[in-house]
């Protein structure tokens, strides 16, 4: 076989049309393909850590890291090298197997989940694993495995703080997984598909529709056509805006649950410094700690990618007519750029939330999960089901009745009454509003060297 034939098969022949003798090309391709999301996620972690610290700094009127490299972007590399150089301590009374396994188990689910998230509709190169029929189940199954890493770390460390952190984390993840699962089921209901690829197709107006005549067991064929009417003539029907309040509520619930799933502020109870030292990774040092760290940030990337794919249109552009995914360079760049931009916005949101919301109390976290997120998600799912069977207006009517009823019940609760009588929100807000940011006049001097006459600076100010 000559090279041009190989590259033709490698780059553009779908799996089910590869000649039987050349099966190894398909296997090779699968290997290369799966490396793309893995490297995307792993290589995004250092810039993400830098981005988070810098943005947190800006939001607190600080600079954040800005010394190493342009704008400080190499700071994370320096920190990583420092972590690797540190002594790797395994405390004497730990359960060694679990202790070593925990950081690995924390990191792997994030990388594996990224495999089914598409960046292009192509069945050949569109995702790490472009044609997984039960992509959504795969996502749910793997994303709930990360908690094992946390629990194992807490258990194996033989440290009461680590154990408490691990237990908190498992309770929290199980509670919020329910809400998250129901939000995802809402999407599955709306789009009628379990494959992530089909879910994204469902969110584009001018898309490829499933061609039943050509669909085989392993390969869903699509032909070009109008799937949905675009909204206002140009907007893609993203799931966040489907069945107006319901898609939005589902997206909101997913976003809250994803904050909780990744142990991010305001749900970062498992690593609450003020109570638990460093939580489940108290006993970890060096490379193992770095892996926990990486796992956490890789998880952030992956959950924002999932949110972007399920609710915000995946690789589709907001404007339906801009969607292009033919086999040209533009047709590849636009979808990949769109999904990357959406992931970036999700990460910005993560950091923004962290800069804003304080960590909530543990009992509030649990009651918010079970009494807030879970019933809202269930009711919302019910309304979506009604909309699908009896039409949007019936669903909306049910939604409004449920929402008003819930609001009346909640507002009449004794605990609400106790709360509203004591709330001090107004006075606290007033205090914040009257606080002025600190300012200081600056004097420029030459870099590094002290002024010859030390008093010049002060005297300049007096003049």
């Amino acid at each position, binding site marked *: 076989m000559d090279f041009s034939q190989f590259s033709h098969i490698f780059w553009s022949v779908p799996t089910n049309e590869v000649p039987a003798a050349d099966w190894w090309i398909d296997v090779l391709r699968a290997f290369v393909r799966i490396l793309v999301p893995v490297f995307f996620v792993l290589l995004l972690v250092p810039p993400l850590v830098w981005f988070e610290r810098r943005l947190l700094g*800006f939001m607190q009127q*600080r600079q954040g890291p800005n010394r190493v490299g342009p704008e400080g972007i190499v700071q994370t590399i320096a920190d990583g090298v420092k972590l690797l150089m540190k002594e790797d301590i395994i405390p004497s009374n730990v359960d060694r197997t679990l202790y070593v396994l925990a950081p690995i188990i924390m990191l792997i689910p994030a990388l594996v989940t990224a495999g089914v998230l598409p960046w292009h509709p192509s069945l050949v190169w569109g995702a790490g694993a472009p044609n997984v029929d039960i992509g959504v189940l795969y996502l749910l199954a793997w994303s709930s495995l990360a908690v094992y890493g946390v629990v194992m770390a807490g258990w194996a460390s033989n440290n009461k703080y680590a154990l408490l952190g691990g237990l908190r984390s498992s309770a929290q993840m199980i509670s919020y997984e329910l809400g998250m699962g129901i939000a995802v089921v809402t999407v599955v209901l709306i789009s009628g598909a379990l494959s992530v690829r089909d879910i994204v197709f469902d969110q584009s107006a001018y898309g490829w529709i499933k061609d039943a005549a050509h669909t085989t067991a392993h390969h869903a064929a699509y032909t070009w056509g109008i799937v949905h009417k675009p909204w206002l003539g140009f907007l893609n029907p993203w799931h966040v805006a489907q069945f107006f309040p319901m898609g939005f509520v589902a997206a909101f619930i997913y976003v809250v649950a994803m904050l909780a799933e990744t142990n991010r502020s305001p749900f970062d109870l498992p690593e609450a410094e003020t109570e638990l030292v460093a939580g489940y990774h108290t006993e970890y040092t060096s490379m193992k700690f770095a892996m926990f760290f990486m796992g956490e940030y890789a998880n952030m990337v992956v959950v924002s990618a999932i949110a972007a794919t399920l609710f915000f249109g995946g690789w589709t552009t907001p404007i339906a007519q801009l969607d292009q995914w033919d086999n040209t360079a533009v047709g590849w760049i636009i979808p990949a750029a769109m999904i990357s931009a959406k992931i970036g916005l999700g990460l910005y949101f993560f950091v923004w939330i962290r800069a804003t919301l304080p960590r909530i109390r543990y009992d509030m976290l649990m009651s918010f999960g079970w009494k807030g997120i879970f019933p809202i998600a269930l009711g919302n799912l019910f309304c979506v089901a009604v909309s699908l069977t009896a039409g949007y207006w019936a669903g909306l009517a049910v939604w409004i009745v449920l929402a008003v009823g819930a609001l009346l019940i909640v507002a009449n609760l004794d605990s609400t009454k106790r709360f509203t009588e004591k*709330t001090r929100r107004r006075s606290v807000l007033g205090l914040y509003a009257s606080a002025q940011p600190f300012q200081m006049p600056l*004097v420029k001097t030459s870099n590094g060297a002290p002024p010859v006459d*030390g008093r010049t600076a*002060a005297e300049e100010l007096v003049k």
Partner: protein
Amino acid sequence: MSLWDDIKALAEEVKAPLTGLSITDSYSRQPRVTIQYPDVRRPLSRRARWRHVLNRYENGLEKCIGCSLCAGACPANAIYVKAAENTAENRVSPGERYAEQYEINMIRCIFCGYCEEACPTQAIQLKDIYELADDERKDLIYTKEMMLTPAPEEE
């Protein structure tokens, strides 16, 4: 409280995180207050007492006359002065004598400023040169050459 008030209070609770988000967002676009120290310095007060400086007259002669009053006044015993006679061909200061050797041990010095007060000619002054850290104890004994202001250029 009536039901309507309760609903309003709940709505405020829902609005609160959004208010917070808008506050942090607006702050992220405001100027940063960090003073980037080695590049930018915050001016010190005129009375800041840091490293000593040995002054000169405008004609280039040293003000210090080697009288050791500063060493006597120093509560930390940080100053060592060794005086020498001025001669016609080697005139360093206007008076009879000058400080041939003048050392201050910055590890001992407590920056009290008594030396400045004791000096009859205002030869020694504490200024706002505050970057005194070093990793060698010996280098922290400042000699006369290190503290003397540079001689005015010959005209």
